[in-house]
């Protein structure tokens, strides 16, 4: 397959997740919260994955997180990642509890450690949704 014209990093948003992506475009990170059992979760669903209540809403996260684990990716032949290598693939644990897949940017690879304090920023590019990524906290 000729994948040179496709890119594999663009999320297909849907009505149930659009508020998340709209907020990201404004530099805000949203997670979901259940009004019945108070569970906080990510990724968003229009119901609580713990108690199945449909009374759920959005909560703006602080953007502060800790590094749960990571890997520096040297090989990825899919666009646009093949022009981004090496990059840091990571799991961030938000201060509010839920975890997110992410990238760590503006960092020294050798300086990363589990538990490192992180803060959110947004990767903006015209024509595609704004993507939350993290950098070492100031």
């Amino acid at each position, binding site marked *: *397959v000729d*994948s040179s014209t*496709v890119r*594999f*990093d*663009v*999320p*297909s*948003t*849907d009505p149930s*997740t659009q508020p998340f992506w709209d907020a990201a475009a404004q530099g805000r990170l949203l997670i979901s919260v259940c009004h019945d059992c108070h569970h906080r979760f*990510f*990724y968003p669903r229009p119901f609580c994955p713990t108690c199945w209540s449909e009374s759920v809403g959005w909560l703006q996260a602080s953007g502060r997180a800790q590094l*749960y*684990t*990571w*890997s*520096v*990716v*040297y*090989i*990825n*032949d*899919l666009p646009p*990642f093949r022009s*981004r290598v090496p*990059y840091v*693939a*990571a*799991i961030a644990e938000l201060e509010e509890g*839920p*975890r*997110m*897949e*992410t*990238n760590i940017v503006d960092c020294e*690879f050798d300086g990363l450690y*589990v538990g490192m304090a992180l803060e959110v920023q947004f990767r903006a590019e015209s024509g595609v*949704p704004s*993507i939350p*990524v993290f950098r070492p906290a100031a």
Partner: protein
Amino acid sequence: VTRKDRAVAIVGAALSDCGRVDDKTEYELHFQGVSRALADAGLSKGDVDCFMSCGTGTLPPVDVVEYLGLRPRWFDSTMVGGSSWEVLVEHAVAAIQSGFVDVAVLSYASTTRADLKRRLRSANLGFSPRGPAQFDAPWGLTLIAKYAMVARRHMHEYGTTIEQLAEIAVSTRRNAALNPDAYYREPITIDDVLSAPMMADPFTKLHCCIRSDGGGAVVLTAADRARDGARTPVWILGTGEASSHVTMSEWGDFTESPCARSGRDAFGRAGVSPRDIDVCELYDSFTSTVLLTIEGLGFAAKGEGGPFVEGGTLQIGGALPTNTDGGGLSACHPGMRGMFLLVEATRQLRAECGARQVPGARLACVNGTGGWFSSASTTILGVD
């Protein structure tokens, strides 16, 4: 040993051409595997009333059923990654024990290596970024990176070293050296593993499974027919299956494989424990896969897998001979290795393995891991 009439055994097992297969399609490999496995069992095409396969075609397993000219009255194509074959064993056992069918064939084939060479596919997998995957696609967590993250978290929590993980690759290569059909047979050292090209840190190329072509099939039937078969029946003593996650942020503990649950079921149903096992075939997509599987199944306590594998534990002749054919790390890995685990375990229990035979092997533990610890399935096999 007396067994109930509907106890189920593997009565035939075979591989298709494996390694570098440039002159055959995936479908031809299915025909090779299935016809060889039936011949091994002393059964024929007309005996097959249940067929299970996934990974090939548009409406699996109908494409392969059509190609082979079969007419099964029960089929299944449960697709949960490389553990699918162990899951399908559990489903086939249920189909046979219920009395719906008598002879089940499970088949796998893939020409991943040849397809890559012909540029029919990309090296990295691209998935549709819809639904939950919209919260995975943007960040490029490659398959290797997902397993490398597991290694890193285990190293952080338990002090496991990269050298201990490398030892798994070294031991597996030693086993491969005894298998004339293994893809790579030259011995390697821990230093070789550490100094190989970096893929997704801390994993170099030698922490990762190889890419080959290949396939295989197994034939299952109930005790009444199994006893009259051409080969020693390899009894399916216990099975289990468990799922965990597809989206990595949903995985609660990156050091725990779902095999902790599938293994508990399989050992419990078999009425045996890890210390009874003579030989293991454990999906080794990456060195971290083996580490978490050894702990999840209870061969080592949680967090102690690193020290456990030191000193050649997993080699033939070691305390827990594992991946005796050389595994996915050295012998054969077309993409969903679970089938090869079943074929090798069957051959070990039938004492057909020549230089790589584990002497006196009577009880085997097989564990498939699918996706990125997304699913696991455990099969306990034994001979009378």
